[in-house]
């Protein structure tokens, strides 16, 4: 956290997505009211074909990033994996499974499971590892999201449409492009239980008879948390924007930059309205966010911000020297994050 004590930048990026699907054509497969889902503003999302695991997508993205960087896995000093949905197995380390898939023999791995927040923690972890160890010069950061449809309805996912994808980035010490300048984050633990998956963990390994994770819309639990009081809920909505603005302000101060210098804000791939709310809280126009990309991609959990960063570069929407704020709100947590990148 805080301003970098080491200089590092992104050398290359790789992505791997599930099959692209139209929201209009498939929403009715998930919910009885597809019009409500369409109102979220998404046009498409990605769904991994049957049998395609998060580990497979993460490995595909990693291979592409390594190839673009001209690196062999043996030249990577650390692998950091953020996995934002339910892993393939409980009591299992997807980061080690990814390393095995990539043919690594001894590269240390780290697993980050803070849901949609994992991207920021992963970048911070890479910076920290480089600061702590001069031998750590190259880090492979991988973020993956493959929705477990047995646990979650991807069309009723915290007001967004959940999507399957992975992004991998090769980070190198002293790399002069796509430099990580600073970060900031805050957590409000009052909301630790919001959006949790109810069954399958140690507290409730199995759902009671007649119930299941998919039976109740997660938003109903959110309403219950606030006593179904519109004023309390409205305060929560306000807090989302206020805390986002606060972490962006802190990250900018740590980097010695101003909000007016931001060329683009890349938010998690939330609904059209949620991104508009974030833009308003940050005082930037919607067309300088990732709103359009979010509508095409769907919410890829922890992969959103780095996927969109790369897509904006590919489309020529970011130029050398541009200042970009990668931001997000993550639940459970809840956490608010900002990482500043200079292109």
């Amino acid at each position, binding site marked *: 956290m805080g301003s970098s004590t080491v200089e590092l930048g992104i050398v290359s990026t790789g992505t791997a997505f599930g099959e692209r699907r139209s929201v209009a054509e498939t929403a009715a497969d998930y*919910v*009885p*009211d597809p*019009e*409500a889902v*369409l*109102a979220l503003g998404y046009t498409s999302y990605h769904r991994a074909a049957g049998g395609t695991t998060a580990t497979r997508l993460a490995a595909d993205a990693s291979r592409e990033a390594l190839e673009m960087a001209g690196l062999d896995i043996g030249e990577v000093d650390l692998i950091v994996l953020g996995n934002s949905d339910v892993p393939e197995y409980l009591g299992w380390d997807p980061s080690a499974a990814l390393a095995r898939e990539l043919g690594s023999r001894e590269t240390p791995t780290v697993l980050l499971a803070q849901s949609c927040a994992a991207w920021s923690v992963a970048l911070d972890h890479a910076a920290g590892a480089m600061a702590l160890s001069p031998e750590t010069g190259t880090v492979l950061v991988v973020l993956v999201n493959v929705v477990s449809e047995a646990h979650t309805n991807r069309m009723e996912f915290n*007001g967004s449409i959940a999507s399957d994808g992975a992004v991998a980035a090769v980070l190198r010490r002293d790399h002069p492009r796509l430099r990580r300048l600073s970060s900031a984050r805050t957590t409000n633990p009052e909301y630790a239980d919001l959006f949790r998956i109810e069954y399958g963990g140690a507290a409730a390994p199995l759902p009671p008879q007649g119930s299941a994770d998919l*039976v*109740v*819309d997660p*938003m*109903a*639990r959110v*309403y*219950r948390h*606030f006593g*179904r*009081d*519109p004023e309390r*809920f*409205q305060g929560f*909505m306000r807090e989302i924007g206020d805390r986002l603005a606060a972490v962006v302000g802190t990250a900018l101060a740590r980097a010695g930059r101003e909000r007016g210098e931001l060329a683009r804000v890349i938010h998690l791939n939330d609904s059209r*309205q949620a991104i508009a709310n974030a833009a308003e809280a940050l005082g930037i126009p919607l067309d300088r966010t990732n709103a359009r990309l979010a509508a095409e991609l769907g919410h890829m959990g922890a992969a959103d911000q780095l996927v969109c960063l790369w897509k904006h570069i590919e489309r020529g929407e970011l130029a050398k020297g541009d200042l970009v704020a990668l931001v997000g709100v993550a639940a459970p947590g809840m956490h608010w994050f900002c990482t500043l990148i200079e292109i």
Partner: protein
Amino acid sequence: MPAEPPAATAVPDVLDGDIAAFVVERFLPGVDAGELDPDYDLLATAVIDSLGILHIAAWLEQRYGIVLPDADLAGRNFRTVAAIRAVAERAARGEGGA
């Protein structure tokens, strides 16, 4: 002694016009409640959002004494005036949350 039959529970009449008046007053200022079609899509037009759902649920409780079950607090039940009336009537009959 034979058990007495349970007393009939009064199910309040939930009126489209009443709902339309509240929706207009709260979310569509300047619009005449009489002009709001009971089938006008309030979600697709972003008149109602997640906060709006809670406001309407609270109003149904205050106005009619109808408490919607948690499971009914879903967008589909608030998409139109007619949908709001239907979910309220189901809850009033004790058939909500299905």
